[in-house]
Structure formats: structure tokens, C-alpha cells
């Protein structure tokens, strides 16, 4: 009896040592190559290898760029993808004596599908690529403009189980790899920096609310037009988030950009203003800056005789005066009232410039009127769904009226600065 139970225990020991020690998927944390940013550029067929080599030569120390050397691949390659990989040693708290090492390096791979490019990546990295901490995904204009490519490229970043639907997506008119290598002083990772800037909407009205990749998929599935944050390269030490990349629901590809002013207008229309500065003229000479603190938006639809909807926006903005040149007596009610008027007009101009560009030039409903109609007037919408941006192109014809009321609540510490 005793011997038997001892044998049993011995058997259990052996069994558990086999069963408990084996873990198929164990990867030590120092064996993972954390990829925090991905930049997707288009391969331009004319560019030969020597010029690509030159580019990588000009990159500063602490950053290595490997361009694909496989000629056979180059022929068919569609994308040139830059992966930003974290180097764990660079992330450590800096030693006063030690030479600061870069916290990241770049690897560039060319290919047509992202999984094979990931495999290529594994051939070059000592650590296995790991995407769970991917923060930003940057597409260059050329990729986003090519029909079909954008949706194709995004598939991998949605399908792979390491990916998150909350990864931020941006579009750049420059090279995605350049954006990824902007490194402001004091920031360790460009990707983390870009992610932070992307949610700076409270300080600027010209930043579109950040776009998550999950939302992009929803828009692509709905065949609706949508906007993505645009990032452009200022210099090596900063990138600028300013503007909107407009994607058409007709072709699911990029068809143009809105500049900062138009993006601000779009933000007002979509009720996504969190803050920001509005410059306004005062009379002939004067100028002032208004800070948006709160806005409320009401919209109404009325159907005209031809059955077309007309949209009325009532936008009320509250805020304070932050700067004033040549504005008389900011304390008097009359001046305040006039300033309110001017601010309202300036905002209205922003909004109208956005509407004109979207309706007449791009014919893309990024204002989300389609969403509104499908929610509130579903019956009308299900009849006219096919005519909204295609066919009769109703979107570009519907009248949109905007009324803006601004209220300046505070005028700051002083009355006037010069007489």
C-alpha cells in the first residue's frame, strides 16, 4: 500500500515535470522585438537600388535602415514598409556617464503582402517581431491614393490577432518613413510622440479627432467617406498634425486633403471641437484671437419640394478673448457684441470653406450627413442610399445652411494694451 502510493507520487512528479515545464508559446520579454510604429510607403518603380541606398546613408547614427536587397522581390514589390522597433537598452533610465543609445531603430522591408514582410523582418531581427504594442500606422499619400491598396494594406492590421482595433491611423503627404523618424528632443520614441500629438485636439481646432483602425474598417464596410488625420513633416525634430485626408466611399481610397482651416470647419460641423483658437478681424485694422471653450451644435433637416433634404446647423460657441490688436475698449458691451459677430463670421467662413471643398471638389460626405440621415430618416435613406454619393450625387446638391453664434465670456486680464 505504502509502496504503491509512493510510486504514484513518483509518477505524478514525472508527469508534472513534463506537463508543467512545456510551454509552446513562451517567448521571454527580452526576446520580443516590440514594434511600435509602422510606416507604409509605396514603391515607386523608377527608384533603383542605388538611390535607395543613398537615402539610408544619410540617416543619423542610432538608426539603421535596411532596404530590401532581393532583386526578385523588388520587381513585384508594392509597399515599402518601415518598422519602428524598440531597443530595450535605449528605453532604460539613462546613466549619467553612459552614452545615450537610441531607443529605437528602423527596418525597412519591401513586399506585396504584409505577412511575408513580417517574415522578412524576422530574417533580419534578432528578436521576433511583436505587434501588440503597435501605436501608430502611417500611410503615405501614394499608397492611400492607389485604388484598392489602402483597404488591402489595412486587412493585415485588423486580421492578425496581435493587432488592436485602437491603433491610430494617419496619412501623410510626405514619406511615411520620414514621419517615423522625427524625433523631438526629450521624446524617446517617435511613435509615442505621434500618438500624443494626435490627441492634442483640446489645444487646436485643426486636428481631426484621432482615427482608430477599427473605425476605418467600419467606414470601409459601410462604403462611406471618411477622414483620417494628416501628419506632415515639418523638420527632423517635429511633425505637424494638421488637416484631414479625405477618403471617398465610392472607391475606398484617398482623393484629397483638407487643410487646417477646412479641418477646423469640419470639426465644427461634426461637433468634435474640444478647444482651439480662432483668429478674427475687427473692423479694418483690428485683429483678435478667440479661444473656444465650449460648443453646442444643433442640426435640423427639412425636406424641400423636390424631396431633397436641406440641413440647418445652429452652432453656438462659447469662449474667451485671448489676444487683441487695435480693438477699442474690450470691456464695453458694444465692442463685445461686435467681437461676437466677427468671431461668428470667421467660424462660419471656416465651415463654409470646408463644405464647398467637400461638396463641390471632392464630393465626399465626410460631414457624416449620410449617417445622420440613416439614423433619423431611415426610410428616406434606404430609398436614396445609392444616390447619395454615386448616381445622382445628391450629397453635392443638398443645401447646407450654417448659423454661428459666438459668445465671448472673458476678455482676459487687461482692457487694452496701447492707446
Amino acid at each position: 500500500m505504502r509502496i504503491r502510493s509512493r510510486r504514484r507520487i513518483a509518477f505524478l512528479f514525472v508527469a508534472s515535470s513534463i506537463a508543467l515545464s512545456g510551454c509552446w508559446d513562451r517567448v521571454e520579454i527580452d526576446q520580443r522585438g516590440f514594434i511600435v510604429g509602422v510606416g507604409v510607403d509605396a514603391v515607386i518603380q523608377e527608384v533603383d537600388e542605388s538611390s535607395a541606398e543613398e537615402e539610408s546613408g544619410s540617416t543619423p547614427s542610432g538608426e539603421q535602415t535596411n532596404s530590401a536587397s532581393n532583386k526578385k522581390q523588388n520587381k513585384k514589390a508594392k509597399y515599402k514598409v518601415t518598422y519602428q522597433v524598440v531597443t530595450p537598452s535605449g528605453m532604460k533610465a539613462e546613466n549619467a556617464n553612459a552614452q545615450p543609445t537610441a531607443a529605437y531603430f528602423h527596418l525597412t522591408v519591401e513586399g506585396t503582402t504584409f505577412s511575408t514582410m513580417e517574415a522578412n523582418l524576422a530574417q533580419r531581427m534578432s528578436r521576433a517581431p511583436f505587434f501588440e504594442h503597435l501605436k501608430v500606422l502611417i500611410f503615405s499619400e501614394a499608397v492611400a491614393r492607389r485604388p484598392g491598396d489602402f483597404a488591402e494594406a489595412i486587412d493585415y492590421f485588423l486580421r492578425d490577432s496581435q493587432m488592436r482595433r485602437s491603433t491610430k491611423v494617419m496619412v501623410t503627404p510626405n514619406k511615411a518613413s520620414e514621419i517615423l523618424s522625427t524625433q523631438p528632443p526629450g521624446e524617446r520614441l517617435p511613435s509615442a510622440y505621434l500618438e500624443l500629438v494626435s490627441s492634442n485636439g483640446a489645444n487646436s481646432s485643426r486636428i481631426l479627432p484621432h482615427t482608430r483602425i477599427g473605425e476605418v474598417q467600419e467606414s470601409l464596410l459601410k462604403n462611406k467617406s471618411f477622414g483620417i488625420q494628416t501628419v506632415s513633416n515639418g523638420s527632423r525634430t517635429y511633425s505637424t498634425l494638421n488637416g484631414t485626408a479625405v477618403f471617398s466611399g465610392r472607391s475606398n481610397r484617398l482623393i484629397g486633403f483638407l487643410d487646417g482651416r477646412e479641418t477646423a470647419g469640419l470639426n465644427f460641423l461634426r461637433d468634435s471641437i474640444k478647444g482651439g483658437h480662432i483668429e478674427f478681424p475687427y473692423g479694418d485694422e483690428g485683429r483678435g484671437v478667440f479661444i473656444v471653450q465650449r460648443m453646442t451644435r444643433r442640426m435640423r433637416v427639412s425636406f424641400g419640394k423636390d424631396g431633397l433634404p436641406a440641413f440647418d446647423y445652429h452652432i453656438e460657441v462659447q469662449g474667451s478673448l485671448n489676444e487683441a490688436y487695435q480693438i477699442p475698449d474690450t470691456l464695453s458691451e458694444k465692442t463685445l457684441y461686435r467681437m461676437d459677430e466677427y468671431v461668428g463670421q470667421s467660424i462660419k467662413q471656416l465651415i463654409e470653406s470646408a463644405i464647398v471643398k467637400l461638396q463641390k471638389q471632392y464630393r465626399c460626405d465626410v460631414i457624416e450627413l449620410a449617417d445622420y440621415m440613416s439614423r433619423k430618416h431611415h426610410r428616406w435613406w434606404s430609398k436614396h442610399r445609392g444616390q447619395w454619393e454615386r448616381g445622382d450625387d445628391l450629397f453635392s446638391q443638398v443645401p447646407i445652411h450654417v448659423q454661428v453664434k459666438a459668445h465671448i465670456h472673458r476678455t482676459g486680464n487687461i482692457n487694452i494694451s496701447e492707446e
Partner: protein
Amino acid sequence: MKTASFGERPVTPLEMSMTIASMLIGVGVLTLPRTLASATKSFDGWMSIAGAGLIAMLLGALVSRTAVKAGNQPFLEYASSLISRPLACLLAFFQMLYFLGFSAYETRAIANISKQYLFDRTPVEYIALAFFLVIVYGVSGSRSGLLRLNVMFLPAVLSIVVVVVVFGYRWFEFGNLEPFFVTGIPGLLKGMKEVVFSLLGFEIILYYIVFMARPEKAPKAVVGGILVAVVIDLIIYQLAIGIFSNVGAMNIIYPTVELAKEIQFPGNFFERFESLFFVIWIMTIYNTAVMGFDLAGECMAFLFKRMTKRVRHLILAPAAMIICMTPNNLPQFDLLGTMISYLAVGAGVLIPCGLLLLSGRKKGTAAHADTK
């Protein structure tokens, strides 16, 4: 002839409710937003959930009424007194098949999901095997211990749902729920079918009622348990639609897991919440699967009276593994799920309800049989 004589306290109605709830909360909820979104438009699936919940509660009440009628004797004995032993054997066989399939299905589902999200390289067979060995371990102990396990795990499951909901609202867009009431009746019915399938499993009351101190409270307990599951379904569904929108939810294989993945805690010190979510959810799926396997053993005991528990499990476990590993891809796996659901409706719900009718009609003769 009480089976609950392990010197343990019998199960209270509340504990029975929790048992039913943990049986119903399984892998169904993980995919429910997708199946519902495919069947209905916009946010209208809530009507399907509510309707299906009502149906399930009604059926649950009926089935537990049958269980109450059986009184102190095990359900299958009671059935054989009503419809003769050969027919009862046939019923036992189908129910065994159902419970075995159910447990195998849950095992495969959790193996699939773990493979996708946690164990990238571990073969799915081994994940299923490891999970199944724990199930076999679970059923070889005391049966009422399994019921206690539900009582222990369910609060954890409910609290993880609360966490998902509270932190998930950050991405919630009310606009995604609109427009209301746009789905036609056929769509709603189709959605209802999906929800009813995910709510099957309350039939376990037929067998577990013998553990209850006051069996007459069983119908209430069952309805309460189903209600908990329905409420969880509703909460998860509205959150999934609010965050992913209808088309989004339709195109995500496991929307509920993606919900957990979306969650970010402020301060960034705790990332990858989904791993915690998984651990907790595996617990409730374990409960579901282990009860299914236990009852398959029970049914087999009725068929082969002299067989010992160990032999039964030695036969059933490999059978379950074979069922579990048969589907090769997701569509086949869904087919298995549908087959098991139909089996459940037939053997687990309709026949017991039929027995209830029969017992009502046989009332005069039944009294006669009792005295025999």
C-alpha cells in the same frame, strides 16, 4: 433516495440560479454580437434577445416543472415510469449524446479562441486536451462540489463584465445604435433563434434538482438564472454595437473578446486586459463544460447500471475528444454547434415538456403507479 448525501449542505435556490447562469454563460456570448448583428439591422437585436429570453424562461419554467414532478427520484427513472424503460433508454441516449456534444463543443470553442488570442503556436489539440483533462478531473470528484464551483466562479464573471462595460464606454457611440426598429420580423426571428441556442443548457435542472433542499423552488431559480444570462447578453450586445457599429460587429469573429481588447486603463500601467478577461471567461466555460460532461456520465449510468464511474469516464472522455476535434474549420464547427442545439431542443426541452403533458394526463393512473 437523495443523491446529495455526501454529508454536505443541500443547494439553495439562489445557488441553483447561479448554477443555471454559469451553465448558460459560455462561449455563446463571445460570438453572440456577431451572429445577432448578421441577422438584424442596427441595434434591433435587443428585441431578439428579449424575446428569446422570454421564450427560454418559459421553457425553463416548464422543464423545471417536470423536474419538480419527478420529486425525489432521478429524472430518468421518473421518465421510465411514464414512458416505459426502453423509451426512457432512448431518451437517456439522446440526452447523453447532447450533453457530451455540448461539453465537447465548449471545449473546442475555448481551444479555438485561446489558440487565436493566447497560444499562437500551441496546437489546438493540446489546448483542448489540457482543458479536457481538467474537466475529467472535475467530474471524478463530488458532484455537488461542481455546483459549489459555480457559486465561486460566477461573481468573478459578473465583475469582469462590469469592468468591461465601465471602461468600454469610453469608445461607445450612441449614434451607432440608431436607427431603431428597422429590422423586419424574419430578421428578428432569425436573431431570436441564435439567442435561444445560446441560452440552451437550463435542462440541467432535470438532473441537479435532486441536490436542492426545496425542489419546489426550482422553477423560480431557473427563471432567475436565465434572467442573469439574458441581462449579460443584452449588456454585451449593446456595448458591441455601440463600439463597433452593426457592420463592424458583423465582421469581427469574436466581438466580445475584441471588446475586452479595446479596454485601456488610464495611466497605461495595465495593458492587455484581455488576458485577464480570458482567464475569467475560461472559468465559466469550464463550469459549463464540466456540468455537461458530468450529466453525460449520469445518462450513461442509467443506460449501464453496473458500470463504475471510472469506466464511464474512460469511455466518454475519448468520445468527447473525438467529437471535439472533428470540425476542421469554423463553418464545420458552427455546424456542430447547430446540430447540438437542435439535439438540445429535442432531447432537453421538448421531450421533458412532453413528459409534463403526459404526466398531467396520466394523473389518475400515475397515482395508481406510485402505490405499486
